[in-house]
């Protein structure tokens, strides 16, 4: 008997499914720890999270499916989740369910069960049942649903071992029978009829359970219908469906989709009646969350509280970040000087020395200095999201979003835009209405992202040092106001149509675990840095190159290619108060990545960030500085954002529009600020 464990080469695939806010991510992190990575589902813009762990000598691959309430084809998230389970056939699906909101969560469960896939239910947030005086008979629930149920408290890592054990057990046991819900005496015969049609195509019936397909057909699932029409013998299915649907709808006066949903809930109701006991009346169930909401969503207090939360987030980002920023600053200064000296000692000077010290170290340093602020900002945003407050913010802002013809759900992507516009624009996926989505994407770059922060800090620090925070806050506010105005304009002139439907879950307030918030912050922050790392590095070298051409020219002078480009564009900015080539050049490179604006100025003025402040104060005035910051706030989003806009809108037209309007608007506002300011004698 071998003493060493033999690792079975067979890999087991485990998928995680569940509602948003059910604790699915916590379970995923708990299972996979550091062994996870994020990618994209092919062909769509949905995030794909994968990881792995080892259990019982086997390597288990974990796929975290997008959080969904259902498995229709109504949104990309749902389609991705559904298709994965249907076609990739994972060995087992762990369905994470919020025990305190069982009925709603079981809606997804029932759909999984109808698909006939192996399921283990994780009854999560089990600890909260006690406070709400709810008792769930786990054994009964398991019996009624026909699947193992494990109670868990993912945030405290309770129940995880058992969960994994059961999952592996189930996976080995092979396939199970799909759940059959009785849809009533009118619908059942129709289902059988459709099933017959499907059985006539044997290879299809072998792949997917015919009854499940029949239910989907009746439901009118577009994705499935499209798929099915491709099979010979099933082309008439759509017409057949129309006929059945008309008949049933005339009978009931209600559309078939809703009926099927109702019947599913009927089944769920039956299950919960027998397995869940509540000791409280509906009235008593005013939880702590509701009490907090009384204040937070109060019509008078709501907005001030929200502004307070935002202000606190900013203060946190800057005040706490300050010591770190200073530290990094100092490090790069030292590093640059030390490397320069070392290189001279080693005999490398001239261009190479300059490339390394001025170009790479100088440029990178000017930008990386702001990493602490960026991470702290993402931390604050993650905290607000995970605690459940973001949903309330969306509720509060819904009133105002209506003026834009949007609704509260558009608010969350705009909030994320304060961190980085790339994930923010990707977050618009949750908006089902295309028009809303487009508007939210187009105004998103006006939400001042973290990359523009270095510019503000530099100029505000140089000219308004005492009121730094206030000045920077004013810029963010300006961005917000402009976003609102732009939204109004877009709504009036480009899009008209019905207002869309606002439905959003308000999850109970939860104290997010430090670990999960850190992971969130890390995910967003590190992708931001990776983008920064690659693009910025390339750009920095490019700038250095252009500053040294044509050969022999004085480094980063007006005669270099860099300077020439800037000089060419500079006059355009005359009316805005910064018609010098240095500013123009920095702005041009800011198109590639906003962080580079400061780096470019650093290279041009031949100084590190610390020295840059002094140099700036000599060449600029407070007013022109403010105008410049306004321009930076508004003009063309960076390359990464442009690419994201193209990807999410799938249209070059709208992408160019976004680029164009921001340029024009930016210039107009900068000029406005400068001219009006001059009139008031602020120069």
């Amino acid at each position, binding site marked *: 008997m071998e003493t060493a464990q033999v690792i079975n080469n067979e890999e087991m695939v485990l998928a995680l499914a569940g509602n948003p806010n059910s604790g699915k991510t916590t379970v995923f992190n708990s299972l996979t720890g550091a062994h996870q990575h994020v990618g994209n589902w092919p062909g769509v813009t949905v995030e794909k999270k994968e990881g792995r762990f080892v259990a019982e000598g086997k390597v288990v691959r974990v796929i975290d499916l997008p959080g969904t*309430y259902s498995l229709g084809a109504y949104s990309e998230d749902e389609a991705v989740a559904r298709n994965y389970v249907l076609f990739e056939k994972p060995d087992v699906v762990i369905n994470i369910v919020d025990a305190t909101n069982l009925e*709603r969560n079981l809606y997804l469960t029932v759909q999984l069960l109808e698909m006939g896939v192996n399921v283990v239910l994780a009854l999560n947030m089990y600890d909260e049942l006690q406070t709400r005086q709810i008792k769930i008979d786990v054994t009964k629930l398991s019996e009624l649903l026909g699947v193992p149920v494990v109670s868990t408290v993912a945030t405290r890592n309770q129940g995880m071992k058992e969960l994994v054990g059961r999952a592996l057990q189930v996976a080995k046991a092979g396939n199970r029978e799909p759940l059959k819900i009785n849809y009533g005496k009118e619908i059942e015969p129709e289902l059988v009829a459709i099933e017959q049609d499907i059985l006539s195509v044997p290879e299809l019936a072998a792949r997917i359970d015919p009854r499940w397909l029949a239910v989907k057909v009746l439901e009118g699932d577009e994705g499935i219908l499209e798929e099915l029409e491709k099979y010979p013998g099933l082309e008439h299915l759509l017409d057949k469906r129309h006929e059945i649907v008309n008949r049933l709808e005339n009978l009931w006066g209600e559309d078939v*989709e809703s009926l099927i*949903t*109702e019947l599913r809930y009927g089944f769920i109701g039956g299950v919960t009646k027998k397995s869940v006991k509540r000791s409280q009346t*509906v009235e008593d169930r005013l939880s702590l969350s509701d009490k907090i909401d009384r204040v937070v969503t109060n019509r008078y207090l709501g907005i001030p509280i929200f502004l307070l939360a935002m202000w606190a987030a900013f203060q946190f980002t800057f005040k706490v970040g300050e010591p770190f920023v200073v530290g990094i600053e100092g490090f790069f200064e030292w590093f640059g000087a030390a490397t320069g000296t070392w290189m001279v000692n080693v005999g490398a000077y001239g261009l190479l020395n300059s490339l390394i010290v001025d170009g790479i170290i100088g440029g990178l340093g000017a930008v990386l200095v702001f990493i602490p602020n960026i991470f702290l900002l993402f931390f604050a945003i993650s905290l607000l999201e995970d605690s459940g407050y973001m949903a309330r913010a969306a*509720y509060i802002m*819904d009133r105002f979003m209506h003026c834009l013809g949007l609704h509260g759900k558009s608010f969350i992507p705009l909030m994320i835009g304060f961190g980085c516009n790339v994930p923010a624009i990707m977050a618009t996926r949750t908006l089902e209405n295309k028009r809303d989505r487009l508007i939210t994407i187009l105004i998103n770059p006006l939400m001042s992202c973290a990359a523009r922060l270095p510019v503000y800090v530099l100029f505000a620090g140089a000219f308004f040092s005492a009121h730094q925070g206030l000045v920077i806050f004013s810029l963010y506010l300006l961005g917000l106001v402009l976003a609102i105005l732009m939204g109004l304009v877009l709504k009036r002139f480009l899009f008209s149509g019905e*207002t869309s439907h606002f439905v959003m879950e308000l999850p109970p307030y939860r104290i997010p675990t430090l670990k999960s918030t850190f992971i969130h912050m890390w995910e967003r922050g590190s992708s931001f840095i990776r983008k920064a790392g690659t693009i910025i590095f390339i750009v920095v070298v490019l700038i250095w190159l252009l500053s040294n051409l044509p050969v022999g020219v004085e480094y980063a002078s007006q005669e270099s290619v860099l300077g020439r480009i800037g000089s060419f564009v500079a006059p355009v900015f005359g009316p805005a108060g910064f018609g010098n080539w240095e500013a123009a050049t920095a702005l041009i490179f800011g198109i590639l990545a906003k962080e580079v604006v400061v780096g470019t100025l650093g290279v041009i003025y031949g100084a590190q960030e610390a020295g840059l402040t002094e140099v700036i104060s000599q060449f600029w005035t407070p007013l022109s500085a403010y105008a410049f910051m306004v321009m930076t706030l508004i003009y063309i989003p960076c390359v990464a954002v442009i690419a994201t806009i193209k990807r999410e809108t799938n249209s070059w037209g709208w992408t160019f529009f976004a680029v164009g309007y921001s340029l024009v608007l930016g210039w107009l506002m900068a000029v406005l600020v400068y001219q009006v300011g001059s009139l008031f004698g602020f120069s």
Partner: protein
Amino acid sequence: MGSRVLPLGFLQAGQDAVIKKFNHGRGFCRRLTEMGFVRGARVRVVKNDIGGPLIVTTGDGRLAIGRGMAMRILVEEVEQQ
């Protein structure tokens, strides 16, 4: 008794009702019904301030529903349990 049928948007905070009918276009129901807002479901209005969305509950979970939608959901008032 005599409970009346009226749009959800007209209910006051604290009132209970049972969903009777949706005055709707196609996509209207989907999100709602997925969340448990089906005909026959019992709901309670948690908050209903002028101009803003409503906050309602089917027992557990709180849902924010736009005013426009709330006016298209017809419910029947019931006594509180």
